[in-house]
């Protein structure tokens, strides 16, 4: 069987990530761990923004929810991080359903502003130390990730956890693309009116995409809070949401290579050009304008399935 070009690309990508720890440089291992976590968040934003076509600029809320649930359970109540695992998926998903249900019918920009609003309310809640649980502006320190005699925040362990999370997310998205739900989302994005008229509930699938994206982002938040063994409101503010929003659109909606490349540019390149650290967002701003002018559909626009040969062929 002949493999597709993209398959080789993914195999190479996975091989590089699997063997990466042999470089044995703790700094880069941390950077690439962060890259894996942020890629997962960017892919979860893409489920809502790229696949369901809803302008979601508040996704850091769900990422932060996962991280904060882990930190609060572990630090404030002394519960093992492993038991937080189901909650970091379910709670953000429930929040997503509750928050998105009343607003999914809004037209693009209005939805965008509503999600921004939710993110800012979330950030302020964290900063104001709600019920004395969220730790105020400094966040929560000292997440203890000791499980079955292993410490999960060892650089190598957390790297592989993040890597497997990324693998799992990619698998989930591949399955989503080939499932009824994925096709429905694509259809709703193309033409909501037509999809409604053949019995696909736009409302249901839009809320579904929010819940799925939130669950994945919450899981990424779990890994994040273990990696840094701390959480703070700044990591989940509205600026973070803006970055993920930009990653998806600069990379290309619903395009996995594009989003991975976008995450790489936003989070790994700055580590290479560390001397320009203060000017980082200045150059990102310019790059965002330029990339949109040159490639308005993103760096690697997603290609949707080709028409079968017998349709296009001249008879």
């Amino acid at each position, binding site marked *: 069987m002949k493999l597709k070009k993209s398959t080789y690309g993914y195999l190479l990508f996975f091989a590089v990530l699997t063997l990466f720890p042999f470089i044995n440089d703790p700094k880069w291992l941390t950077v690439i761990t962060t890259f894996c976590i942020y890629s997962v968040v960017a892919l979860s934003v893409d489920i809502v923004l790229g696949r369901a076509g809803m302008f979601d600029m508040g996704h850091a809320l769900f990422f932060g929810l996962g991280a904060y649930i882990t930190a609060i359970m572990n630090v404030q109540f002394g519960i093992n991080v492993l038991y937080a695992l189901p909650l970091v998926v379910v709670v953000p998903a429930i929040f997503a359903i509750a928050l998105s249900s009343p607003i999914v*019918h809004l037209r693009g920009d209005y939805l965008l*502003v509503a999600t921004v609003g939710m993110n800012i309310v979330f950030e302020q809640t964290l900063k104001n130390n709600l019920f004395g649980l969220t730790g105020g502006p400094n966040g929560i320190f000292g997440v203890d990730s000791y499980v079955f005699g292993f410490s999960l925040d060892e650089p190598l362990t957390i790297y592989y956890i993040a890597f497997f999370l990324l693998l799992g997310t990619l698998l989930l998205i591949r399955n989503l693309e080939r499932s009824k739900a994925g096709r429905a989302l694509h259809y709703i994005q193309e033409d909501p009116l037509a999809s409604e008229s053949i019995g696909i509930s736009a409302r249901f699938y839009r809320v579904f995409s929010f819940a799925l994206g939130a669950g994945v982002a919450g899981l990424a938040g779990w890994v994040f809070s273990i990696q840094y063994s701390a959480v703070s409101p700044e990591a989940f503010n509205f600026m973070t949401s803006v970055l993920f929003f930009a990653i998806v659109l600069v990379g290309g909606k619903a395009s996995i290579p594009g989003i991975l490349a976008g995450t790489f540019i936003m989070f790994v390149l700055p580590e290479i050009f560390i001397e320009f650290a203060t000017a980082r967002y200045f150059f990102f701003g*310019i790059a*965002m304008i330029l990339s*949109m002018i040159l490639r*308005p559909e993103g760096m690697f626009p997603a290609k949707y399935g080709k028409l079968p040969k017998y349709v296009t062929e001249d008879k």
Partner: protein
Amino acid sequence: MDIFLQQVVNGLTIGSIYALVALGYTMVYGVMKLINFAHGDMVALSAYIGLVLYTQLAGLGFIPQPLTVVLVFLITALVIAIFGVLLERIAYRPLRTAPRLSAVVSALGASMMIQNGIMLVWGPNILIFPADILPAISWNVAGVTITFIQAAMIIITILLMISLTLFINYTKMGTAIRASAINQDAAKLMGINVNLVIMIIFVIGSILGAVGGLFIGMYYRGITFNLGWVYGLNAFIAAILGGIGNIPGSMIGGYLLGLFTALIAGYVSSAWAEAFTFILLILILIVRPTGILGERVAEKV
């Protein structure tokens, strides 16, 4: 009762800033259907440029104080208007036919560029406007203190709004702006130069934003490079509150939001004021997304 009236005065002052900045958002949205995210940062930029100009002009020593202030306002407005036109030329015009989201990302990019450009030039620390720019007079009316700057801000804002309303409703260019907002293609067919209309909109929006930025600097005195997002988002909420794309709506929305924030800060909690503002926004979007005077926004689905 005294606290209430005092908060009303404060609210009207903040509301003036919101209303001025909101007009920039609403006019661009009305014609281009684009949230100009960089507008808030233009407002921040104007505060910095105003501060530099004031320090330079006051340093010369021979210009009388009132003239210095007027000059600062005029030159800042001019500079920001030029920036506004450049912004539209560089970041938005090439994307006018592109997908909507591309223009949004370009606007976000422009916002990040301006905000961090300010940080690179003037540094990340807070800068302070001198206290003696305007006379420190204040009046005491029925237990309520009104300072000179508050009175000046409210009066200038109202004058600017009256002139804008007259301009939009009674001039040829104003009619062209309203026509382009309703239907750009039809406006083009009627011989309206839509490119010129968009340029004029950016000039007017930037001038109003520049005045707002200078007010922020003179009233609050401390300015930081990221103040654009704070005031920008609030002004944007004001625009939605009044009905985005609707000019009188933004003015009303600005003042209502100013009163709302001031009363929340006065009676409930200032630490939660921002959260309340955004909860108000979300409630408006759920209950009446068109705003007070706005158009229909929900999809037909």
